[in-house]
């Protein structure tokens, strides 16, 4: 219990951040037309690749001979990077099709 109050005290600003981001997230995306469900999902999916930043920090702070951190951290970077690059590219491909049709 003491740890919990300490934690809340030390991380209050993060707790605010989380609470407001949750509300903001629901507000921003609440009215999506069906036509955009897939691109929204795949675009959001690409954003979840933001975990790559954790992997970058992990490797940057690892000792150069800490092979476990380096190898698994790099694996993490590869996986997250596939998610980021693939996700944004494929979303753009989809949205390009929507646009093309609008001009016609």
């Amino acid at each position, binding site marked *: 219990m003491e740890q919990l109050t300490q934690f809340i005290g030390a991380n209050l600003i993060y707790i605010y951040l*989380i609470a407001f981001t949750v509300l903001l997230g629901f507000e921003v995306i609440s009215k999506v037309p069906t036509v955009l469900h897939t691109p*929204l999902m795949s675009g959001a999916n690409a954003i979840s690749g933001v975990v790559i*930043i954790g992997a970058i920090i992990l490797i940057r702070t690892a000792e150069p001979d800490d092979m476990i951190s380096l190898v698994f951290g790099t694996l993490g970077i590869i996986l997250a990077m596939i998610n980021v690059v693939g996700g944004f590219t494929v979303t753009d491909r989809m949205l390009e099709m929507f646009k093309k049709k609008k001009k016609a």
Partner: protein
Amino acid sequence: MYKTLLDVGFLLAAIAFITGLRRLSTPATARKGNILAGIAMVGAIVIALIYPLGGETPAVNYGWIAGGMLIGSAIGWMAAKRVQMTAMPQLVSIFNGLGGACAVLLAVLEMFKASADYKLGIAISVFTLIVGAVSFTGSILAYLKLDGKVRDKNVILPGHTYINLILLVATLVIAVLYTMAPSQALLVGLIILSLVYGFSFVAPIGGADMPVVISLLNSLTGISAATAGFIYGNQIMIIGGILVGASGTILTVLMCQAMNRSLLNVIIGGFGSAGSGSSAGDSMDGKVAKEVSSYDAAVMLNYSTSVMIVPGYGLAVAQAQKVCKELDELLAENNVDVNYAIHPVAGRMPGHMNVLLAEADVPYSKLKDLDEANAMLPATDVVVIVGANDVVNPSALDDPGSPVYGMPVLKVWEAKNVIIMKRSMSPGYAGIQNPLFFNDNSSMFFGDAKDSINKLVDEIKSLG
């Protein structure tokens, strides 16, 4: 000074994520929104590379980072460029799983380092590990199911609901034990159990429930990214992750509403398992489904004034979206008014049909949503159902015993004629018989959707 500037950079990236997502949810600005979010991601990655972390980063570590980024970018880019639009649900789920896998790796590596006294820190890592792992193996199984590599029947065990419950409880118990007293054996057990649970959790869910699962898994990956951000005290990870969690949750809720079912009901997997038994067959209550020849179907379409096409997963499987557009144009030349009725859960991913028809250049204005389409159907001459089944099942309205009962459906039977394109009489993905096939104004057109529409196109051309 330098550090503050970089912090402002992270802040700008966070704002760009939010603005990007906002634009992504409006058709006119969607593409720019996606590009903006992509730029924000690049910016955030660059800042993470140069952010001062209290000590020099060894050059060799940068080598590892660069290598990982190059390999990941190349694979991601190629996969995204090569994929067929019909295979989009599979690709989105596999990408999603990879993000979850990265969160698992981060959590596990953090657990090696964390002090055993800081319980809350361990608890956050444990949570990240479980959520990330479930999202990872769940997405892999969703990918395999969508790609047709795994069939639902082969992964559902007897009493699966109880197996899942036991797995979940076991995972949580080990999670608590580990948090109290970390040990390597418990960690290994926790990793294995979480991965198995993810797989087992998705196993009984299939068919028309797939869009719900994909959205839910998407949301889980976002949450695991956010809690991983908590481990590293990184705001951009928290914000990005939570936004994804929120968008995934909203889509999950929308998909559940479209089927008029609770999330719990979807997860337990009532669809397909109930109402099985004597469902397959070509007759029902003594009535026999009748077939229509391609010539008769072509005549019916050509001399009608309004046609409604109802696409489903069969359209995606047969890659029939382009021939469908050809049929549409041919009929339009003969002054037939052609529209498309899009059910919210048609296909295997939220908005799946919209993406396919957009690829074939079908104008947005011709795509009618559930309410619009139902208002138009009574005045429609011919409905052409292309590989859809459960979303046009009248049992949803009048048979309380049916697993689809209560789900809002397209009331195609109110149109004057219904042509059902199907490969065979077998029931749909959900394994439920459809009384629509036996109505007097229904007729079956058997064959692969693409071949069938091609035949129709040829027949209509020869009618002149």
